[in-house]
Each structure stands twice: as C-alpha cells, then as structure tokens.
C-alpha cells in the first residue's frame, strides 16, 4: 500500500461481483446464487465479455457497443476506462493514463469470491490488468469464507491469493458462537473461524479483516455479554473489523419469517445500545473508528476501496448487480447491471449491454447522498467541497436544521466540516433527510 493513510485516495475503484456461494444465508440480500464449476466458468467467460464490451479493444464492434450505451453513461464511462486520451490502441491509452486517474483498488466481492477456482480468479485479474488502466500500486480486496481457508486447498488458495496481489482479505466470520452461526445459516463453526483467521494472519496479508453480525433476535441483551464477544473478536488479532447490525430484508428467508411473526427483530432500544457500546469499546481499545460498521486497528488498515463509496469517488462495477458511478463535466451518473446472473450472462452472450438502468444525479441527489454517506463517517461532510460540487451552500440554506442538529448533540461544525457525533452517526439516515429538507436544495 503506497497511499498514505490520511491522504484520501481520489483515484477510481474497480468492483467485480462474484455471485456464487456454497449455500444462501437466510439474511443475505445480495445478488447471490449457488452454482457449480460449469456455472462459474460460464460466469467468468461472461465477465470477460463484459470487460471487453465495455472497455473496448480496438475493434470497431466494441466501439459501436460503447456508442450504443445509454448516452448519459457514455462519456463518464470513457473517462473511467481511458481517461484523457482514447486512441485506437488501448494499451497506449492505458500507458498514457496518468497515475492519478487509474484504478487504485480492485474489490472482489460477492457472493463468495473465495469459492472461485484460483486459476479462474487469476485469469480474471490478469484480464483486468490487460484491459484496464490499473495503478501500479493497485490494492486487491478479496472476500472469503472461513471454510475456504481450511485444509490443503485452503493453503493453496492463500498462496495463490498472495501471489495475485491480494492485500486485504475480508473473512465472513459473522460470529464465533456455534449457536449463532447455525441460526445465521453459516457453514462453519466458531473454532473453524478462529483457525481461518489465524491462517490468514500467518499468510501475511497487509490487512486481514473479520466480519461479525450483532443484534441477533435472541442475542444476549446485556452489554456485558456483547462486550465479551467484542473482546473475543479483538483478541483474534485481525487488523480490521466490520461489525454489522443484523438487518432483516424483505426478500430473504429472515424477511419471510419476520413477516409471519416467527422471527422477532431485536427492539430498537437494544440495537441502539449495542451500537453505542460497540463504538465505545473499539474507541477504548484504541482502534480507528472510521464508519458506522467499520473499524481499523490503525488508519493504514482502513478499506481504501469502501471509503470511495462514501466520498463519491468514481467506481466501475462489473458482474451481475454491480453498480458504477462516474462524473464528467459536472454531470454525475450512476448505472447498474442486471441483478440476475443468468440474465446478465445472456445479455452479454447476445452482444447486448448488461446495464439495467442508469440515473443522472441532480445536485439535490448529490447533496442528499453526500450527507447520507458522509454522516456515516466520523470524518463527516466537507461542506465547502459539497458547495463546489453541487452549488448548494448548506450552511446558508439549512442553517436552522444544522443548528438544531448541533444543539441536539448529533453533530458539530468544525470550520467547513460537519462532523457527526456518535449519537449523530447512529441516526445518520434521519439526520441526512432532515438537513436536506430545506427549500433550495
């Protein structure tokens, strides 16, 4: 990692969605599916097509494909994939891309990218390297399930990932308690999870991260219980923790159970208490609390890639359901691929665009998003940057709401920076909505 912590990475990010899992977890709301080796190979083939199609080789057909895209996407996409110049030789274009415009992060998420055969994965990354302007100091993020790190296969995978340049390994541990793991439909035990973390740490990735879920319906309510679990998590020795409150989504198994009254979500006051306790505990332990659910042992271990989402840094998403965001000449656009893997595949295989839809973000959209995302982070919102990007001077148009928020102890103003307090972060969504209610936004 060459980007020093503290100097925000403004370079674009690249995301690849790998939809496959060995089984579908009952809480999961992502575009996921269970598929064997043939399905995975077909997916990898389609992904290559997508890269070739969108990114374009020098072929006129690819150029035409790009021109057939929705007009609002064309310019920002071109800017992303071959900034400044775009000659017939993409290799030339790539080499002519200045460092500060190349993709500096590649996030392999899912789904479970660790399920992919290492050669398939390596082939994909290689393809991306050939086709896209990737930075020399590219950091690769990989999501992995603990069971994929076990045994001889696991050891081989870890070696391969290291060789591939994976620097940030994110482990879907979710819990260290066997009962909870069963409830969450996970396929590993607490002991296996610990072993996986240990192996990952030994493999010497720059950052090993552990995902945990809290606020389960019948998880012990008392803070001391959760405290003990947090201690266990901290004792794992990972460099990074993602601590997520369990959310019940409609389209999931848990959603169905909740609708039938067979699963009762933890009540809001308890979830609020657990949230606060989590943050305080991590702060006490000297960790860098940098987002609602994300904690790093030191700022250097933060997820450089995820921070881009919260700061409106451009990103290109590939694979089913992947979202992209880019801005050119003051026009900000977000677009996203078909959510269904088979449909996404079929579109690509039939020379069609896998993009499902796009939206041009109005200044008002950007203001709301900036607040909604910025208030999730202690770094808050840079109001002068917001003013430059959107022309909206929040200090002027939302003065009463800002004053209310500060007097309620939800945020404070430090010059041009709006910084949420812990209480403010906990209600970031409502706060963002309130601060953008004013006329003139």
């Amino acid at each position, binding site marked *: 990692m060459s980007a020093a912590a503290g100097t925000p990475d403004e370079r674009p990010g690249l*995301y690849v969605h790998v939809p496959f899992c060995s089984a579908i977890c009952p809480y999961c709301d*992502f575009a996921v599916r269970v598929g064997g080796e043939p399905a995975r190979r077909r997916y990898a083939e389609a992904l290559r097509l997508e890269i070739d199609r969108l990114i374009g080789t020098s072929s006129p057909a690819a150029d035409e494909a790009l021109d057939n895209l929705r007009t609002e996407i064309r310019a920002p996409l071109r800017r992303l994939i071959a900034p400044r110049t775009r000659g017939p030789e993409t290799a030339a274009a790539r080499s002519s891309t200045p460092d500060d415009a190349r993709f500096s992060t590649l996030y392999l998420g899912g789904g479970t990218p660790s399920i992919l055969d290492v050669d398939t994965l390596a082939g994909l990354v290689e393809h991306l390297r050939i086709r896209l302007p990737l930075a020399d100091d590219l950091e690769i993020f990989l999501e992995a399930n603990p069971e994929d790190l076990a045994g001889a296969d696991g050891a081989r995978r870890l070696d391969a990932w290291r060789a591939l340049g994976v620097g940030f390994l994110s482990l879907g541990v979710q819990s260290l308690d066997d009962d909870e793991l069963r409830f969450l439909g996970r396929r590993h035990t607490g002991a296996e999870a610990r072993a996986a973390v240990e192996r990952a740490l030994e493999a010497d990735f720059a950052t090993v991260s552990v995902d945990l879920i809290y606020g389960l319906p019948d998880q012990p309510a008392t803070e001391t219980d959760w405290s003990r679990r947090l201690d266990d998590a901290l004792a794992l020795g990972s460099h990074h923790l993602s601590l*997520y*409150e*369990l*959310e019940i989504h409609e389209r999931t198994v848990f959603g169905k159970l909740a609708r039938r009254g067979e699963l009762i979500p933890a009540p*809001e*006051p308890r*979830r*609020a208490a657990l*949230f*606060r306790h989590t943050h305080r505990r991590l702060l006490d332990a000297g960790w860098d609390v940098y987002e*609602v*659910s994300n904690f790093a042992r030191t700022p250097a271990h933060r997820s450089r890639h*995820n921070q881009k*989402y*919260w700061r409106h840094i451009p*990103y290109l*998403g590939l694979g089913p*359901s*992947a*979202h*992209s*965001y880019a801005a050119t000449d003051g026009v900000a656009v*977000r677009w*996203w691929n078909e959510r269904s893997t088979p449909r996404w595949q079929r579109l690509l295989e039939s020379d069609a665009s896998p993009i499902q839809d796009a*939206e041009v973000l109005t200044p008002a*959209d950007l203001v*709301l*998003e900036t607040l*909604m*995302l910025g*208030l*999730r982070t202690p770094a808050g919102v840079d109001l002068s940057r917001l003013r430059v990007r959107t022309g909206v001077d929040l200090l002027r148009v939302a003065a009463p709401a800002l004053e209310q928020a500060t007097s*309620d102890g*939800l945020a404070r103003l430090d010059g041009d920076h709006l910084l949420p307090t812990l*209480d403010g*972060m*906990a*209600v*970031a*969504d*409502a706060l*963002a*909505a309130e601060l*953008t*209610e004013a006329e003139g936004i």
Partner: protein
Amino acid sequence: MTHRHKTRNFCIIAHIDHGKSTLADRLIQTCGGIDEREFRDQLLDSMDIERERGITIKSNTFTLPYTASDGEEYTLNLIDTPGHVDFSHEVRRSLMSCEGALLLVDASQGVEAQTVANLYLALEYDLEMIPVINKIDLPSADVERAREEIDDDLGLDPFGAVLCSAKTGEGVQDVLEAIVERLPAPTGDSEAPLQALIFDAQYDAYRGVVMLCRVKDGTLRKGQEILLMHTQKTYEVEEVGLLKLEREEQDELAAGDVGYVIAGVKSVRDITIGDTITGKKRPAPDPLPGYRPAKPVVFSSVYPMGTDEYEDLTKALEKLALNDAALTYEKDSSAALGFGFRCGFLGLLHLEVVQERLEREYDLSLLLSAPTVSYRVQLKDGEEMHVENPALYPDPSEIETTFEPFISAAIWMPERYIGPVMELVRERRGVDTNLRYLTQSRVELTSKMPLAEVIFDFYDRLKSVTQGYGSFDYELLDERETHIVKVDILVNGEPVDALSQLCHDSVARPRAMRYCEKLAETIPRQQFKIAIQGAIGGKIIARTTINAFRKDVTAKCYGGDITRKRKLLEKQREGKRRMKVVGAVEIPQSAFVAVLKSDVGNK
C-alpha cells in the same frame, strides 16, 4: 285493480346469511317475473356493499304474478326489508306495508338473534307469520331442532313451518302456496279518501323521485292532485304502476296495492319517507301512523386523505344526497386535516354505508372524526344552541346546562347473558333498566340510555358479550341533562383539533387514554421524546410518551446500496411532507386513521 282479495303483501324476515336474498330470487324466478337472461344473482341486494356484507340497506319491492294450485292468478307483493338497527325505521315502514311475513330459519343454524328481534317488530304490526325452514338440502340440516326452536324461542306453531331449499328450488312452490293460503288479503276501501304510505323512494335521473307506496284506502290515478300530509306539499301524479323488474305503468293503484308513484318531485329531500299521500280534493282526516322524520342523530367530520380530493368529495356528497334524504352535510375545516364536511347520519351503520359508498363508488379515501351526537346547550346569557361539533363547544364557564339525547333501548338475548349485558348497559349509563322474560330462555332488556354511549362501539361490545346472540334496537326518547366535557388530545402540548371530542365526564379519562395509546402506537419515533396527553381545559387526564429513536442508520452502505438508500430517504422525506406537524411532531395520516378507525370501525 279490483281483485284485492287476490293480492298478498308480504316480506321476508331472516338472520343474515339465512338465505333471504336467495329465497327472494327464487320466488321471483318461479313466478316468472324475470327473464332468465336478465336475472342477476341476489337481485334484491343490488348495492355492492349490501352484497358483500350480506345485509340489505335499501328496500326494494317486487310484484310477482302467481297462478296458484286453485287455478286463480294472484298478485304477490314482496317487500324487502333492511336488516339493521340503524334502518329500523325503514323496517317498520316496510312491515307496515304488509299483511304477513315469511320468517326464515336456517335448518342447520336454527333460530338466531336477529330473527327474534325482527319477529318482535313484525308482531308489533300484527303481521301473520309463516315460519320457513330453509337450506334443508345441507348435510348439516336439522329440521327437527329448527322446529323445536321455532316453538321454544319464537313461540310459533312449528308444524306450520314450510320446508324448502331456496338454493335447489325444493319446496319453493309450497312457500308460494302458503303465502296465498295463509296470509290475509289486504283490507281497505278503494272508494274511501286516499291514504297511501310512502315506504321508500328512489331517484331516477330522468323522472325525478319515484315513491314506493302501499295504498291503504282509496285509489291513486294519473293526473290526480295529491297532498303529502306531513310536508303539506301538493303534486300532480304523472304515472303510477307496479314494480316488476322494470316499472310497469298501470291506470291506477287501489286499496291494498303496492306500487310506485311519479309526481314531478325533484329531490328525495322534498318528501319524507313514512309520509302519507292523500287526495288534495278529498283528503283523509288523518295521516297513517308511523311517520318519523329521518333526522340525523350521529355526526362526524369527513375529510379527504389527499387535499386535492376535496372537490371530488364535494361532488360525491352532492350525488349521494340525491338518493339519500337522511344524509346531511355542511362545510367544515380542521387545522390538522384541512377542508372537509360535517355530516349527519341516521346511525353508525348509515355512516359506514355512506363512507363505503364514497370510497368505493367515488374512489375517495377518507378520514372520519369521532362520531358524536347533538347536544343542546343552554348558555348563562339565556341563549340556546345545538352543538354537534367539538370545535364549536362553548367555554364551560358560559354554559348553564347541557342536554343530551336519550334513547329507549331494547336488547334481546338468551337468558345466560343477562349478567354481562346488564354490566355493559350500566357502564354505558343506562337507567330504568327492566328485564322481561319472553320465553323461558329468552329475555328482553329495556333501558334508557344516552345515544352517545350507543354510537361509540356499543353494538360491537354487545355482540361480543353475547357471543353474537344479543340483538338491539332503539328509538329516540327525549333529552336529559348531562355533564359533557370536551376532551382535547395534545401532542407536545399542542391540541390536535381533529381528535377533540365531546363525551360524558365519566368516560373522559378512559377515552382519552385510548386515544393517547393509539397515537403512541402509530406516530413513528422521532429524534426527541414526544408527550401525548388528553386534557379537559387545562387539566391533563391522560398521558403517554413516545421515546426518541436513537438508531436508524443502516449497517451496510456500499456501491450497490446508495441509489436505493437515497430513494428510500427521499420517499420518507416525501411522506413527512404529507404529515401534519403538531407541536413540532410529524403525525402521519396513518396515525389519524388508526385512532379514528378504532371508533368508527364498528363491525
């Protein structure tokens, strides 16, 4: 028509679902009154609401030609009766137009509460009763038990009961024969001065008001000048005739006949149901008994959910009132809910029927304020006023005396429910309560009660404490002195005008508590604590609080979540714009609905 002795006027009395409409349809079909093609199932209950709820609200009448086994042709007038207490006036008027009634009993369910209640009404008018045991085709039919109940519970001759299945048609012929044989022909003198009872009216867009009437004495003819005895208005008869599937014009309607009169009446508001038609030249000395003006006794403010629906609501009410003389309305407005109408109804069911028709036929979504009665208030300065709107209730310091309407209530029930029903009546401030045994196991309880206590979820409670066996009827009695208070509901110290209500001081506290709790359940948590209070004047009588929410941020927000999340927040913000802000608290419309529905949703 001269064959008065070959006319039979009858109605069908039944509990909901015991097959009244099916039997009516079958009678109509059997008599060939209606072409098969035109035949609609359940023809009599033509309104959607009636069909869905299995009740009849508007009465309809059919004239059926029937050739009996004696070879003679008879004219059978089937007069449909509404089946609910709010419309008991209409039931009475229908009954007054008949000489006899079919009392329908479900062979599998036996005699039920409503059957008994209606039977007593019918006996009051001296009608000849024919018990009919219906649904004998059902596997669960128990004819012997039904006979026993007819004997024990109704005190009617069980062996005179006719067995039939309206569904299969079995026994329908026997029913028709029994009507001819056992019901008396109408009496009356066609040469005497005209006396005809208006028991219903319909509005026809081309012809104006079509009055349905039963001629008691005298004769009605085209061109005749008539006088409506109560309203003292005169009209010239344009057309008379019989009600078949379509109106069938006749030369005249003579004593004993049931038919329609068209006389250039422009609006149902120009006439009153229950009025007596007489001749202008040779008037009868007295009107027929049974007249009571359809006077609204229950009042509620009706607001459209969307402010842009106010115009539509205005038009819909105008149209509805064309056919519903009992409905009154005038403009009203609320700080919380905007413009609406203060409406008057015959009772709670009438209110519900109007509400449902507005929502269904005119596609409006509505909010109704808590129903109230009309209070007569004497002020200290000697002035007197009628108040049926809490917003207009004078300051207590100016009030000398308040009077509230009282009813004479009658409740019929099996003996075993006496205890809980007495308790309910006492709780509802019933006085002069008396019990009378109708049979060994059936009891009639009469009591004088405030009308206000009956419109507030009484029928529901009665049904629940008697497991559905209790039935209830009432008539307005008088006005009595009372202690009424205006209860305000405050949100963070500010009153929500649409939730203010007038009630007796003895029920103010529980009523206020209920409102507070309902609001606390439905107002979403906000970032600050919300106090919800019930108050009389400055005195707080009930309170609840809604604690502030302390966490709403979603756990995950990455590339794929941002657009959806933003749209969700935009939607929430949009929803908030439609909320009414009271005391800095945003109250969603759903909260008003939840609170007010708990009063009105009295099914």
